């Protein structure tokens, strides 16, 4: 299929009537790339697949058709080599999406729903001087949207804001880190729903749906994994999720800390690491009680006689797996500076020794 796709009008003091400045020519290529990128995002979202069909992006090509129009410089772009059967309406949809996002950017009405498209769209107009603008007239509508340097700045600023870790309401921190898969998962216990989110170059994408789901659930979110960004491990202490702590777990912890047998300072000190183990859904759920020293202790048991425990003591955190029948044992001892991720990994090794066949 070939045919008119869009008309782009360039105007400004540096645009002589009927002539196309080099800046504008460069913007034609940017526009093509933006449509390709947004179409790819839409396709992945609809198909729920990561991998694009072969030659997906290259199958969409724009070419200038006709003469440069008088007035300001207007060019008609048409699709060439457009493979309708494979591409469907993704590129038309992409253009509509770009159009709407730019319109909202001009009205300063960008929202979190636009977040996925802002990265490619921010390239449009990025090189424009203040007196230079581009009007986009898609074939699908008789309306147009204007792109200026202001539009580009608004998109860029909103993108920057979106990439800041969102601080919503304190429930728990994101602890576990999955370096491979660039995803984090949240189990909504009681709601029996498992949701996945995405962490992309510093932005933890907590969608509105996800927040609602957490609220609808039994009241707490358990974060199973989150990946690191390109610049290393996320400082998870800055990321918090909306919801309420699991009632029985939190109540139990408070009950223990406040009991007369507790060493309140010691028990309180261990809250963060205890939570990290309870909420790490790659681990089975532990029991929690007070140690002989009055600190918090966690224990996991299985079908067999194995006992795996982690005790939070004054100087160290101590993990142990013992089979009282055969007296096979293993243990670890780490300082309080241990990261939640490393602690979970050490516990996981003990659990595996004890015969746990859970997630790797």
């Amino acid at each position: 299929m070939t045919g008119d796709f869009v008309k782009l009008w360039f105007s400004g003091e540096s645009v002589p009537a009927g002539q196309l400045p080099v800046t504008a020519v460069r913007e034609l290529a940017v526009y093509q790339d933006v449509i390709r990128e947004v179409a790819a995002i839409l396709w992945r979202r609809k198909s729920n697949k990561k991998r694009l069909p072969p030659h997906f992006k290259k199958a969409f090509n724009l070419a200038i058709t006709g003469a440069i129009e008088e007035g300001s410089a207007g060019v008609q772009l048409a699709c060439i080599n457009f493979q309708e059967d494979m591409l469907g309406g993704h590129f038309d949809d992409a253009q509509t999406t770009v159009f709407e996002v730019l319109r909202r950017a001009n009205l300063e009405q960008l929202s979190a729903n636009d977040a996925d498209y802002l990265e490619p769209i921010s390239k449009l107009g990025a090189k424009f001087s203040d007196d230079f603008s581009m009007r986009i007239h898609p074939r699908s509508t008789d309306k147009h949207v204007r792109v200026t340097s202001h539009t580009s700045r608004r998109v860029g600023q909103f993108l920057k804001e979106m990439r800041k870790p969102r601080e919503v309401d304190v429930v728990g921190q994101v602890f576990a880190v999955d370096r491979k898969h660039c995803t984090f998962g949240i189990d909504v216990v009681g709601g029996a729903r498992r949701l996945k989110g995405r962490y992309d170059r510093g932005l933890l994408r907590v969608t509105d749906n996800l927040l609602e789901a957490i609220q609808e659930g039994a009241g707490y979110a358990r974060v199973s994994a989150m990946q690191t960004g390109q610049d290393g491990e996320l400082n998870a202490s800055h990321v918090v999720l909306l919801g309420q702590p699991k009632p029985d777990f939190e109540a139990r912890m408070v009950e223990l800390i406040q009991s007369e047998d507790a060493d309140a300072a010691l028990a309180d000190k261990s809250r963060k690491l205890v939570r990290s183990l309870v909420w790490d859904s790659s681990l089975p759920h532990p029991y929690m009680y007070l140690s002989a020293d009055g600190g918090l202790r966690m224990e996991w048991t299985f079908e067999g006689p194995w006992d795996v425990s982690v005790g939070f003591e004054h100087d160290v955190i101590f993990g142990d797996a013992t089979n009282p029948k055969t007296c096979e044992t293993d243990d670890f001892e780490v300082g309080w500076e241990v990261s939640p991720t490393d602690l979970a990994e050490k516990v996981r090794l003990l659990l595996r020794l004890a015969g746990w066949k859970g997630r790797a």
Partner: protein
Amino acid sequence: MSREPLKNGLLLRQVHPIALERSGRLTSTAFTPKKGDEGELSVDQEELTTRADSFHRFEQNFKKRAAGTLGVLVSECDEAAKRLQVSVQVLADPVPGNSAHAIIDMASLSRRKTEKVAKALKFIAAERGWLYPPEMPGEKVIT
């Protein structure tokens, strides 16, 4: 009074409620000496007292509620220590008001080893079940 090593007999251990998880599940805390105990786990010799007396004396002396009484044999302590390759002694330790008092001496053990011995003793005691108050039919120690 001297601390004589004990060779046999059943040792009664009072279990404080904090050693039980809220579900009633027994934890190894029941056989772990507290910090102030300096590695000595208090028990009573059954042959010098009764299960009921041991239970009520604990509640009276320490003004604490006991969840129940568990028991391990001296020989079982020795066996567990042997399997764990540690040295644990059971010593008579009569104190004023309780001539049946004895200790399972883990003072020479590291924190890690103490932990393992506690787990082993918990396992043995749980298999024997609650000695006092007597178990109801079908009742088992949850481990």
